[in-house]
């Protein structure tokens, strides 16, 4: 039995505790904004916040989540108004958009810790998140906008 909080709601899980958080969020809770990209922690499409820090949901088994707080993109802000989401919209970052929820969660985690990241800090924080459409330039610009700086 695992007791955890997802987007502020208490949840109880009593299934296969080896199951990665990714599939619990998607198949059980239908929080489909967290996406499957590699299943191996290589692409970042499934990035969520675990106690405030970005983690890969595909590499986080349920058994590790007792008494933990999980936030997905759906819980990042009411109405999608988090500064990172607003900056993403302003820069029209997304092309296909599939990876962008993971990118946003990673960026939000970076900014929570490093409010004014340098290019090198952005590179380091974001290098685990692949965007096959190649929107990196706009992601960087949006992160700087969200940080309240001029891109």
């Amino acid at each position, binding site marked *: 039995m695992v007791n955890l909080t997802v987007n502020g709601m208490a949840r109880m899980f009593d299934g296969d505790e080896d199951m990665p958080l990714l599939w619990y969020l998607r198949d059980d809770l239908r929080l489909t904004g967290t996406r499957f990209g590699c299943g191996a922690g290589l692409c970042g499409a499934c990035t969520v916040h675990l106690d405030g820090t970005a983690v890969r949901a595909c590499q986080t088994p349920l058994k590790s989540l007792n008494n933990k707080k999980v936030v997905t993109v759906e819980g990042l802000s009411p109405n999608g108004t988090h500064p990172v*989401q607003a900056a993403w919209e302003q820069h029209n970052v997304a092309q296909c958009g599939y990876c962008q929820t993971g990118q946003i969660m990673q960026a939000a985690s970076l900014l929570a810790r490093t409010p004014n990241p340098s290019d090198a800090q952005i590179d380091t924080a974001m290098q685990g998140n692949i965007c096959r459409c190649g929107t990196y330039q*706009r992601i960087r610009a949006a992160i700087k906008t969200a940080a309240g700086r001029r891109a």
Partner: protein
Amino acid sequence: MTVINVSRRQFLGGMFSTGALVLASRVMPESAWAQTPTPLFKTKADLASLNPSVYLGIEPDGTVFIVTHRSEMGTGIRTSLPMVAADELDADWGRCRIEQGVGDPRYGDQNTDGSRSVRDFYDAFRRAGASARAMLVSAAAAQWNVPAAQCVVRNHEVIHEASNRRAGFGALVPAAAKLPVPKAEDLRFKPKTAWKLVGQKTSTYDQKDIVTGKAQFGLDVYRDGMVFASIEHPPVLGGTAKSVDDKAALAVKGVQQTVALDTFKPPHLFQPLGGVAVIANSTWSAIKGRRALKVEWNDGAHGAFDSDTFKQQMLATVKQTGKVYRNLGNVDAEFAASAKSGGKVIEAMYATPMAAHASMEPPVAVAEFSNGKATIWAPTQNPQAVQEAVSAALGIKKEDVVCHVTLLGGGFGRKSKPDYAAEAAVLARKLGKPVKVIWTREDDIRFDYYHTTAVVYHKAAVDGRGKPTAWLHRSVFPPIASTFVPGAREPLSFELDLGLTDVPFDIPNIRAENGPADAHVRIGWFRAVSNNFHAFAAHSFADEMARAAGRDPLEFLLDMMGPGKVLDLKAQGVDYSNYGAPYDKYPIDTRRLRRVLEIAGEKSGWGKSKSGGGRGMGIAAHRSFNTYVASVVEVEVDGNGQFKVPRIHQVVDAGVIVNPDRVRSQMEGAAVMAVGLARTGEITAKGGRITQSNFHDFQVARMPDAPYQVDVHFVDSEAPPTGVGEPGLPPVLSALGNAIFAATGKRVRELPISKMKLV
């Protein structure tokens, strides 16, 4: 509007003809207006009171419904085509709702590849908007008893200025709906000066849903009572299961059963590969169950395929004279003469490996089957091909397959091939319940329709004044043709019209040849297709020629283009397919190539900074998909031989630009993909099995190694609009190699660059 039908010419009556590239019979059906055939699925536009076209409808509350029948995989087409209709209608963009059309021939061609959605449907969407506009104006004029010519349309209203009367679209809908849909020849289109949306930066329609996680991709489809399937495919193309031990798999909690799937009968087309499906009540159980599955395989005909050995075979083939596809003048005579008259003859061999599409959303599809009919939800570039593939797999009529198109988490050509949707359909009928088939990343990398491997041989003569006098090139690659014709070793002509037969240089002697190669994996079209290796080789070699002649590459390129003209390939015996577009409307015009090169030179400050010592700039220009792009790449190579790309300039002439921000984003993204592909993009095989499996060994560009900045410049043009999804990629590949040469003196003749020692 009709377009050359390459497919019919080449495989008469082929069932999957519409699935192949640059193929379309009737792009814009007349049935799209007024007399629409029975829809497979009614959209809100169909149901709206005023519905002059399958693409557009207006309700009495003023809401405009615009249907996009092309698939959204990141190009922004779901926004761009509706912009064209809304602008022509003079609608308030905020009151337009976009709907995705199901697969249905009444929309015309829906195969979203070949960078042709705007090219082929710009007129159709203008006409849809103009038709509705004319009907609303007629209704208002009749109501006010004034001549229609005195009425203007502005921002969702019809206005008669002389009498100061105005009426909103919604109020006019009931009367307008009773009027006949105007004939095409009676329509008047807005002049460019009156455009409000086209040419303006417009946010993509789904941006908000994307950043909040609400956007629905194929993976996000859930149906009541749905089960989940993960499929163990034969590791070698065409293989079959020798023995299956599913005991351990069935013991996994949540696993319900396993299902054996037949291996296709050649040609493989878009048929399921076969294998064993593990069915479970959740994705995780299906994946876990599949890991416990034990299957022994018969490998079949391709079990000995080894990509290293194969490359040596291709290199041997490319040294032999190939089949001639274009022959101008006499290259052999010129090579012989040049050597005697103080000219230089140079040659070089280029090679590129296979590559995987690796869209971020792996193949996935949901299917339901009941009462002899199938319903599919899929991220597909071609819902009509889904209908065909499912109808073939189930032996039902195409009209009995409804394909709903979700957003696509990337496509790049992979999702034009609906094998995964056919798998879901087969399982849904067998199990009698909704099924979601999910490919893992490993499945995606190992069972792609690969971007083909290629070798290209080049030889050229440059005279004593540094002017090119002869050009010979010869490519060898396993062709896309092999996906449609078992054992095909020669490409379809369109594969050669992508960078081989259409060399634009003003050289008196040109010969283009191709040699045969067998395919041992599924070969498909990948963003920009054979342009990638043809352009990489040709424009790298052009740089080599410039260096051999001791000339500046840009100056040399402009010289080699000549003063500029429309190429007459027909006069040279080439039946050029021109991306399925009529040649008189979209010719190869080297003036436009010159122009993008000149602008690239200006914008990049070409020739102003010194190359060498680890820094360098490279340039290339290439026309593909009827669009002209010049790229200037800047590189910095460090002491360990690692390179960075601080900046790329992309200059694009795509005719009229509908949504400039999305053209920019396509050029940015193509530059990133090109740098990633050139740096590390490589798929290899041993024992018929693909070696790579996930993003650790098939590496794509990540933020730190992507170009830091891509600057996009447009050529202001009134030419008919052309596509932008693909043409940004090919010139970057060679401009990058040329930049590395400028920086280090090392010539990139083989990809990926990660295998080279740059210092």
